């Protein structure tokens, strides 16, 4: 049985002079020792601000090494981290802050949006500014001698991070995840995919989500490996993607399917493929379904094998493909300690090869949803400690899990969960919208794109509907297209049948 605190401390002490993080922004390399020392100094600062075990520290930043230091500092003092996706609409961030009630908020100086909430202390700085530069975070740590011991007040079974994910009910839900779950699940995962200290990952996923924080920061840490920290993948950073990979000697990637598509479309030379053939050790793929055609295209183009895996914010990693198996199928096999069953509509377990809903039993499960203490939310069967994933699939004869669909009404756009209901609620605010159904339709790059089908009282231009959405929604949640309908397909009970609606849209 792993002692989580000791394990984390040992990783720092065993690797003190090894580079852990290289910042693409500043070019600075931070050793494990640098990160530990700065995180302990920050932890001391937090103590001086009155932060106690269980207090919330919110983070409103883009990717930067300071983000990583804040995560570790919060571990030392037992604070709960609430990372905020800076691309969310201000109303969503306001909603999250009101629920979280942070003691401290770290924010980027260039994020000028103000929020009306009770934060005791706001620390503003210029991310990635070097020590000594104006508004550098490191200036604030100068002269502070650490007075907190490593992981001193870490509550291994307390909520360490609250990750907001779109559910089916509209506004985002905060998934409370313990450090114990993260570390234990991370260790099992990194062993399954055979990560080792010579791996160097390129982190281009948002540190506000598990992709950036867990997949590409904590798991490399647990592997005693290193990371190159870059901007979140976006139109500007994507044209430099392979340059950064080559220039920093990256040999491992974790990508979402939409990034694979974009890289295939934008990369016009063979240099990256040559590099991958010689140096790339591992490419992991997850957060959204990976189409087999995309997988084959990417693997062929870049001379690599893609190891697909599966998990949820609520359960962490459940399955993965592994180099040990010599083959990859579906989303891989169940991780040690987890159990997966596929059940039919009556709750009976399906035979191998038969489709049904995927139910998971895992010791790495979330603590709960923030502010919601009744766990009978329809997706947790408390009696049997099983979690209904809302995904549809089957397990083959060899024990590989295949995802074939979804029972839950969620759109996954570019690896991010989006609630159709949240968008529908916004659309219904428009005076001419009578009825609405928002669905995800297949998109080559994003996996799914958001389409709003609306029935209106009077004529309105699609652009007017889009502008209305832009007032209330984050840019990535605004529908790509508005389709006007005379009537919606319905079941005998009057419920809109989104499945049939999608078929009609596909037929044009």
């Amino acid at each position, binding site marked *: 049985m792993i002692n989580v605190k000791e394990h984390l401390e040992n990783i720092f002490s065993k690797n003190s002079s090894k580079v852990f993080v290289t910042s693409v922004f500043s070019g600075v390399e931070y050793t494990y020792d640098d990160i530990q020392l700065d995180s302990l100094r920050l932890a001391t600062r937090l103590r001086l601000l009155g932060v106690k075990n269980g207090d919330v520290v919110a983070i409103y930043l883009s990717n930067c090494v300071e983000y990583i230091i804040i995560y570790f500092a919060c571990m030392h003092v037992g604070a709960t981290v609430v990372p905020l996706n800076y691309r969310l609409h201000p109303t969503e961030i306001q909603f999250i802050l009101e629920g979280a009630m942070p003691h401290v908020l770290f924010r980027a100086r260039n994020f000028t949006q103000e929020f009306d909430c009770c934060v005791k202390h706001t620390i503003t700085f210029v991310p990635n500014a070097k020590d000594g530069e104006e508004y550098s975070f490191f200036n604030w740590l100068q002269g502070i001698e650490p007075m907190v011991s490593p992981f001193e007040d870490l509550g291994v079974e307390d909520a360490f991070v609250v990750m907001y994910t779109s559910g089916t009910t509209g506004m985002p839900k905060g998934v409370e995840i313990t450090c114990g779950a993260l570390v234990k699940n991370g260790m099992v995962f990194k062993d399954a995919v055979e990560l080792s200290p010579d791996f160097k990952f390129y982190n281009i996923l948002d540190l506000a989500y598990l992709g950036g924080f867990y997949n590409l920061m904590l798991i490399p840490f647990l592997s005693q490996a290193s990371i190159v920290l870059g901007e979140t*993948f*976006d*139109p*500007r950073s*994507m*044209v*430099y993607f*392979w*340059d950064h990979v080559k220039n920093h000697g990256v040999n491992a990637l974790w990508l979402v399917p*939409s990034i694979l598509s*974009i890289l295939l*479309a*934008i*990369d*016009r*030379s063979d*240099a990256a493929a040559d590099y991958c053939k010689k140096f790339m050790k591992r490419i992991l793929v997850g957060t959204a379904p990976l189409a087999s055609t995309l997988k084959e295209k990417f693997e062929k183009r870049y001379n690599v094998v893609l190891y697909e895996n599966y998990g949820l914010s609520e359960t962490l990693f459940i399955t993965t493909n592994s180099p040990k198996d010599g083959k990859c199928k579906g989303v891989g096999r169940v991780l040690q300690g987890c159990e997966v069953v596929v059940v039919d509509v009556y709750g009976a377990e399906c035979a191998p090869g038969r489709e049904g809903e995927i139910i998971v039993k895992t010791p790495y499960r979330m603590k709960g949803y923030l502010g919601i203490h009744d766990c009978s939310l329809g997706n947790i069967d408390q009696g049997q400690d099983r979690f209904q994933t809302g995904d549809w699939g089957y397990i083959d004869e060899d024990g590989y899990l295949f995802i074939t669909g979804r029972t839950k009404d969620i759109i996954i756009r*570019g690896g991010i969960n989006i609630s159709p209901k949240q968008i529908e609620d916004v659309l219904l605010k428009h005076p001419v919208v009578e009825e609405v159904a928002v669905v995800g339709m297949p*998109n080559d*790059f*994003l996996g799914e*794109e958001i389409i709003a089908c609306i029935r209106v009282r009077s004529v309105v231009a699609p*652009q007017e509907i*889009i*502008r209305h959405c832009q007032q209330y929604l984050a*840019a*990535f949640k605004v529908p790509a297209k508005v389709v006007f309908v005379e009537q919606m397909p319905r079941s005998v009970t009057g419920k809109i049948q989104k499945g049939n609606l999608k078929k009609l849209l596909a037929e044009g």
Partner: protein
Amino acid sequence: MEIIKKWLLDWFKKNALIDEKIVEASLNEDYFEKGWLDSFKFITFILDIEQEFGIRFANDEFQNKEFSTIAGLCNIIASRKNEKK
């Protein structure tokens, strides 16, 4: 050049839903900074330009600062078309 500019203005109006007057007033401004395109729309933008003007960009052209403004892009497209002749 005017034809190229008009096509780009139309593209932003139709695909990024940005008013033509706003785009016209921002020809020398960085459209990434303005948040007009996400990664997906940027790819569609590039592919549509390549199809419309019969050119194919190289990797290093995407990194050219001129690429991130409409005025700069007009120049790049025009010079690529002239090379073809």
